[in-house]
């Protein structure tokens, strides 16, 4: 016996054709790059597609669509007859796989065959396109292009958190038939759109999800040379960008001008700039749009309320100022300054208005704050009350509704104590917490009408003081036990007769009380002074020690008592309104970026090149800083210094150093994220130089100057020279707005809070930064940077040069989706054609250039490209429908004449439909569909990959998934770059490292081993057998059912007989029961090894 593997002349011809091309190609090293020559060699790809005349054909009855005329015309020229129409069964099966990637159910086949209507094919195609499985199938095609994976590969195969939202985005985009131009726009600039597309059900930002694709590439955990590593990642992103959308291989111009196409080395770096200009983030895609509206409203309301409240403040401050002695002077402090000496680079200066305002989320407001700007705060966050203070207030009996502050309250039963003095010495030993003091005094009408100031001396530690139930002052933060209390009493508050003073004293350690000097304890009434020393009534309130932490849950937000603040130095200020944003049901970045939910509350600086690397941040508060050198997402032991916690507590900003000298010369931007609910202001970031701090000068000013500052405030304009005055007034804490004013603002905030969407899931997305133009790197090496090139497309497709510092991706999207673009539409229709007909009109869908193949039907390609844009308005569904209904798609896979195998061995002219090996996913999904195990639910978190002895390595997922992947379609199995199931690889599942528009199709023994021995298929055959036995009563009926389910056709007599015979043989192995499950399982299992299971005719 001497059987030969059938290698036909087909293969030989492919080789021969390739050889011809390669010989005709310009020699790789033949002298200088010839741009014009390269352009002229393939002029059509640089020019806009033209809708030419529809060809005339001889066989006029054959075409049903103009598309068929193009195909038939070529066949006639080549003297080939088109194949006969495929049978309805074959056509229907083919349409099902092409559109949904799943086999039809027997009843669907029957319904189609029984449908008498003329339009039944169209009806079927439309229903398939409406099926959610269409989106799954075509999303998977697209995932091949963007090398979709859910991990970063390399050593540890670190996860790429929340990547699956991109997959679900694709499924929805295809299912809702997002027009291709919008689809492209979202991929390139979905994060930058003014009005992104929103999910109609959830309101989530849909467009932004498309921008995950740049980040599917490999990421090293511990690159030693970050710049080299950046160049490699960049190469991959440019490669995917250019192949996917342009069908060009630009990445090979990284080191030198393209050898065959009109692409210069500078073109590569021009495209690289688009990638460099933006960075990575995890976006709160579900909440961002809704919260954007809230943020805008908040800002509008702030602008509306600010003048009113400023004015009210000025009015309330008048009596305070008036209460000062007429000739007294007040000591003011002018602002601190933070000079930097020596040569340095100002990376970001937020004190001077918005440098490029790059924020993720609303946390830092709409822009930075200028020095002297008045701010309407949303909560008492500039100096938040200590947690335990809030706790005490929450549980203190006297504070409930300020009950013990009210004049009507009867303190007759309270004990008395002599003041001033510490309460520990007067009946409250070792008490920490709240003590209330009350005193009633009688005043004459004259006394009540005079200008009044309440003096309480020093209070240890904090207090709030009321006169006749109205708060007149207080210090609620620690650190004021030496502060002498002096509270002006607003005019009209005192009355003739009984007046009540109530003081709530809070102490959190050691001794406490109203503990100044007796002469300091008085009520000053005009010229007269009424002493308040001696006996006061007192009662203990909340006890700090007795508090339990459960009470913390019940702590309400403290009411605003002073909504106005003044920014002395300017900067970015974290807005406490947004405290409470929560990321839910999401994963964080592994490694060094972990541990802090940064999404939605991060601000980043522009990108700069580090000069000295001696970086200083001028901040106040607490933040996590990530110095994104080369945008590396590190997880390993190296580069931990890039992530730092910086903390500057106290009232004034401070310079905090971050030593990044090791990275001098590299590109960097800085990302700041607040930690917890702590306040945060960022003023400046500098690189190099010696930063200093000169505290503000003290100066004495007369009372009148304070009045002039208040005049300013009334007008809503604050001159710089008045800043210290107003700051002083704020610092005194003695000016209080009326409850009406406070409540108005408070209720604005409360109602706005209801509109906030606090919870959101996260998704990978691009984050637009500042424009970064890359240098041309000689031989692709970072150590030899040459000239800088502006961001752009390759010269022959170029757009207008970008202006300003925008990332440029919106402009890029506009350029690519312009009707006259020569490649966008052509490349996509060719991809669609490739998927439907098994080979593209251009056989190399990712490369339309010289080293790709020439189109077999150039006029058809152009016709379709124009039709796709114009007639079909970029609707992918619509063009698929049209092509599937064409006569061409409906041909049999058997040639009209066996001689055509020699005449058109590659089937280049489409004389028949090809026989196609189904893709890895389709084979697995079919097995699930046939067994009945298929779970048809759409979307969601990936199912863990099933680990075996052959799916191993470092970074192994912690858990193995189920053998059958929960019955979900393959597109939902977790795609861990280093752990791709053997089953998938055997059937040419593409390794996700770059664009693969055309998968390999091999035919190797390992595939047969999978079909014979893979435990998953064996398991499915058992499930299938069980169902078949239950469903049909007799062996022949069961076999017919199996054929209908697996192959959508009845068995031939011969097949039926062979199956029955095998069944008997199987049954013989298991005791002879012809209805036994084992025998039927074995028969079912045999079906996977039938070529009809993995080949589609």
């Amino acid at each position, binding site marked *: 016996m*001497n059987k030969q593997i059938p290698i036909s002349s087909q293969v030989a011809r492919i080789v021969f054709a390739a050889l011809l091309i390669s010989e005709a190609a310009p020699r790789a090293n033949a002298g200088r790059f010839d741009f014009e020559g390269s352009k002229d060699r393939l002029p059509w790809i640089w020019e806009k597609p033209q809708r030419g005349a529809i060809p005339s054909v001889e066989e006029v009855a054959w075409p049903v669509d103009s598309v068929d005329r193009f195909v038939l015309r070529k066949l006639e020229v080549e003297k080939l007859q088109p194949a006969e129409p495929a049978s309805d069964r074959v056509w229907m099966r083919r349409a099902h796989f092409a559109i949904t990637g799943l086999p039809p159910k027997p009843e669907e086949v029957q319904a189609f065959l029984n449908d008498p209507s003329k339009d039944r094919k169209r009806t079927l195609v439309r229903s398939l396109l409406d099926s959610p499985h269409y989106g799954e199938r075509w999303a998977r095609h697209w995932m091949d292009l963007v090398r979709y994976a859910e991990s970063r590969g390399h*050593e540890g195969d670190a996860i790429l958190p929340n990547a699956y939202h991109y997959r679900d985005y694709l499924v929805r985009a295809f299912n809702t038939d997002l027009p291709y131009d919008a689809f492209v726009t979202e991929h390139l600039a979905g994060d930058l759109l003014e009005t992104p597309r929103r999910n109609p059900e959830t309101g989530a930002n849909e467009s932004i999800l498309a921008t995950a694709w740049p980040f599917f590439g490999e990421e090293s955990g511990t690159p030693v040379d970050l710049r080299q590593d950046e160049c490699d990642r960049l190469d991959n992103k440019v490669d995917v960008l250019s192949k996917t959308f342009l069908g060009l291989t630009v990445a090979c111009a990284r080191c030198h001008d393209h050898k065959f196409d009109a692409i210069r080395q500078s073109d590569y770096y021009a495209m690289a700039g688009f990638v460099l200009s933006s960075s990575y983030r995890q976006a709160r895609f579900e909440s961002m749009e809704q919260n954007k509206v809230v943020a805008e409203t908040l800002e509008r309301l702030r602008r509306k309320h600010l003048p009113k409240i400023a004015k009210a403040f000025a009015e309330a401050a008048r009596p305070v100022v008036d209460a000062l002695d007429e000739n007294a002077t007040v000591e003011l402090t002018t602002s601190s300054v933070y000079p930097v000496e020596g040569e340095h680079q100002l990376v970001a200066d937020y004190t001077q208005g918005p440098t490029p305002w790059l924020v993720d989320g609303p946390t830092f407001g709409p822009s930075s704050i200028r020095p002297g700007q008045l701010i309407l705060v949303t909560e008492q966050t500039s100096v938040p009350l200590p947690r335990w203070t809030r706790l005490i207030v929450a549980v203190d009996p006297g504070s409930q509704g300020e009950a013990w502050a009210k004049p009507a309250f009867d303190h007759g039963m309270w004990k008395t104590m002599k003041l001033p003095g510490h309460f520990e010495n007067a009946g409250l030993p070792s008490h920490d917490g709240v003590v209330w003091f009350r005193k009633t005094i009688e005043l004459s009408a004259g006394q009540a009408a005079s200008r009044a100031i309440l003096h309480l001396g020093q209070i240890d530690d904090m207090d709030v003081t009321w006169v006749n139930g109205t708060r007149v002052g207080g210090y609620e933060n620690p650190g004021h036990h030496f502060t002498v209390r002096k509270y002006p009493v607003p005019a009209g508050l005192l009355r003739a007769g009984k007046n009540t003073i109530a003081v709530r004293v809070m102490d959190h350690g050691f001794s406490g009380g109203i503990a100044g000097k007796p002469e300091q304890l008085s009520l000053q009434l005009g010229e007269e002074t009424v002493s308040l020393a001696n006996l006061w009534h007192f009662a203990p309130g909340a006890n700090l020690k007795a508090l339990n932490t459960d009470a913390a849950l019940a702590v309400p937000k403290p009411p605003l008592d002073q909504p106005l603040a003044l920014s002395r130095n300017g900067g970015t200020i974290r807005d406490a309104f947004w405290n409470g944003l929560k990321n839910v049901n999401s994963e964080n970045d592994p490694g060094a970026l972990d541990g802090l939910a940064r999404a939605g509350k991060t601000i980043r600086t522009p990108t700069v090149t580090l000069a000295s690397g001696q970086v200083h941040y001028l901040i106040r508060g607490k933040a996590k800083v990530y110095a994104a050198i080369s945008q590396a997402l590190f997880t390993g032991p190296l580069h931990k210094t890039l992530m730092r916690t910086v903390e500057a507590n106290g009232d004034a900003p401070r310079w905090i150093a971050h030593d990044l000298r090791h990275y001098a010369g590299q590109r960097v931007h800085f990302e700041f994220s607040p930690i917890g609910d702590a306040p945060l202001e960022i003023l400046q970031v500098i690189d190099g130089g010696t930063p200093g701090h000169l505290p503000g000068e003290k100066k004495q000013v007369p009372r009148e100057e304070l009045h002039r500052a208040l005049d300013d405030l009334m007008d809503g304009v604050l001159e710089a020279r008045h800043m210290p005055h107003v700051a002083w007034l704020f610092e005194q804490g003695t000016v209080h707005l009326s409850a009406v004013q406070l409540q108005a603002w408070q209720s604005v905030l409360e109602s706005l809070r209801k509109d906030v969407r606090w919870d959101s899931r996260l998704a990978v997305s691009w984050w637009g930064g500042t424009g970064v133009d890359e240098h041309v790197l000689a031989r692709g090496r970072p150590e030899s940077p040459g000239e800088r090139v502006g961001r752009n497309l390759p010269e022959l497709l170029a757009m207008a040069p970008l202006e300003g510092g925008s990332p440029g991706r919106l402009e890029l999207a506009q350029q690519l989706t312009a009707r006259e673009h020569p490649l966008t539409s052509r490349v996509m229709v060719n991809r669609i054609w490739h998927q439907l007909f098994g080979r593209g009109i251009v056989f190399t869908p990712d490369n339309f250039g010289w080293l790709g193949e020439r189109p077999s039907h150039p006029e058809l390609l152009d016709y379709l490209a124009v039709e796709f844009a114009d007639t079909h308005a970029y609707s992918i569904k619509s063009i698929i429908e049209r092509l599937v209904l064409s006569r061409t798609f409906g041909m049999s896979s058997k040639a009209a004449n066996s001689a055509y195998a020699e005449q058109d061995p590659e089937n280049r002219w489409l004389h028949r439909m090809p026989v196609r090996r189904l893709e890895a996913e389709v084979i697995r999904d079919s097995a699930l569909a046939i067994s009945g195990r298929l779970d048809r639910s759409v979307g969601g978190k990936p199912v863990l990959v099933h680990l075996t002895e052959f799916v191993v390595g470092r970074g192994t997922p912690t858990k193995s998934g189920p053998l059958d992947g929960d019955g979900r379609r393959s597109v939902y199995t977790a795609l861990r770059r280093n752990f791709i199931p053997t089953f998938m690889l055997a059937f040419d599942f593409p390794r996700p*490292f770059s664009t693969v528009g055309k998968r*390999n199709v*091999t035919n190797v023994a390992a595939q047969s081993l999978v079909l014979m021995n893979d435990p998953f298929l064996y398991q499915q055959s058992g499930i299938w057998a069980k169902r078949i036995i239950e469903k049909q009563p007799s062996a022949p009926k069961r076999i017919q059912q199996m054929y209908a389910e697996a192959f959508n056709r009845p068995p031939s007599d011969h097949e039926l007989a062979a199956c029955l015979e095998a069944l008997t043989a199987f049954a013989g192995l298991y005791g002879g029961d012809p209805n036994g499950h084992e025998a039927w399982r074995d028969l079912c*299992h045999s079906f996977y090894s039938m070529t009809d299971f993995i*080949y589609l005719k």
Partner: protein
Amino acid sequence: MSHPFITRRELLRKASLGFGGLALSGLYGAPVRPHFQARAKNVIFLFMEGGVSQVDSFDYKPLLAKHHGEDPRKAIGEIEATQFGNVGKVMKSPWAFKQRGECGAWISDLFPHMAELADELAIIRSMTSNFPEHTSACYYLHSGVGLQGRPSMGAWASYGLGSENENFPGYVVLNGGQIPSGGLDNFSNGFLPATHRGNLLNAIGTPLANVKPNEKIAKAQEIKRSLAQQLNRGTSDGVEALESAIFNHELAARMQLAIPEVMSLDGETEATKKLYGFDAPYNHTRTYARECLIARRLIERGVCFVELTIPMVNGYQRWDAHNDLVKNHGENARAVDQPIAGLMRDLKSRGLLDDTLVVWSGEFGRTPFAQGGNGRDHNEYGFSLWMAGGGVKPGVTFGATDDWGYKAIENPLQIHDLHATILHLLGIDHERLTYRFSGRDIRLTDVHGRVIHEILS
């Protein structure tokens, strides 16, 4: 029974007349006859993952003892960035070096068994890598690119030559337990057809994915196969792909038998097993001995490229001696030294060494100064490897590092040169073995590589 099928190589020789230099892809995936007379038919690649220290094995540097304990920045001079940046003192080797064999090559006591074979080895002491980090360096060593997704050299060899035996794939990875950094993609077919993927054969446990039938009764599988084949013939319609699939089913059935056969060592004599170290007291020695013996059996059966991964000697530490060099290298050497020597002797005595190229290498070397106290950090600037067998000049030493064993200074080589040389010995011109992917004719050596003729016989 005569073999019913011609070999792939034979077939392609027939099919490809006149189309030299271009590879058939997709269908059978192997190209053409070798470009010139091959010196070796097979390669056994002994991958010492983690990076063996050159100054403790094949690169004798007496100066280290003299300056032991000194600050390397003073003694050596400028120190490049290391992966962990924890630069310690200059550290002498804990192992004594001696001159071995007639050639007088300096080899340390770390490898007593290998040292006895000095006259068989061509030692290269001036190899460099581009990456001081495992994963990139592993990818680079395997595929010539420091990134995921490129075809491994074994895949290129398989693509270039195919397998002599239709029952086996061309590229087999014998897994001793330590899957290298970067995972199975080190053995990837990349953009080459899937058939050239490094097929992972476990030395212990199920040898090959899906080679073990689920059926408890062997007859059941036979019936299945016969039914499917009978019915497939009826539906193939002369369509080539379908006929190939039928052929593959038959091949798979044979592989299913052939793999257990090659893994079964019942037919090997006790003396042979002993030679490899099957009776060694250390269990990891026994594991690697098993791998080495199976490697010989695989090349006997015509597998073109066999790669061995090391056993899990120190967990995931492999040869990566960041601390306690003595323990780490000592134990790893203990596992591989005797089996490798056994393999070499066995190949030689069977006359197989003439046709078999044996390559021993890590992905980089280690620093001559300590990392912290008693370990060594990664060093890409100079390290040692050896080659032996088919076409290699025995008993030579080539290239040199500086006086410290830190950087290659004499005839420095790149991984591309190693690749070019391996392909050359297999009869393949590295500049002509290309595969067109995404519009480029891509080769293993990219635009680099020179054959190291100095070590060829």
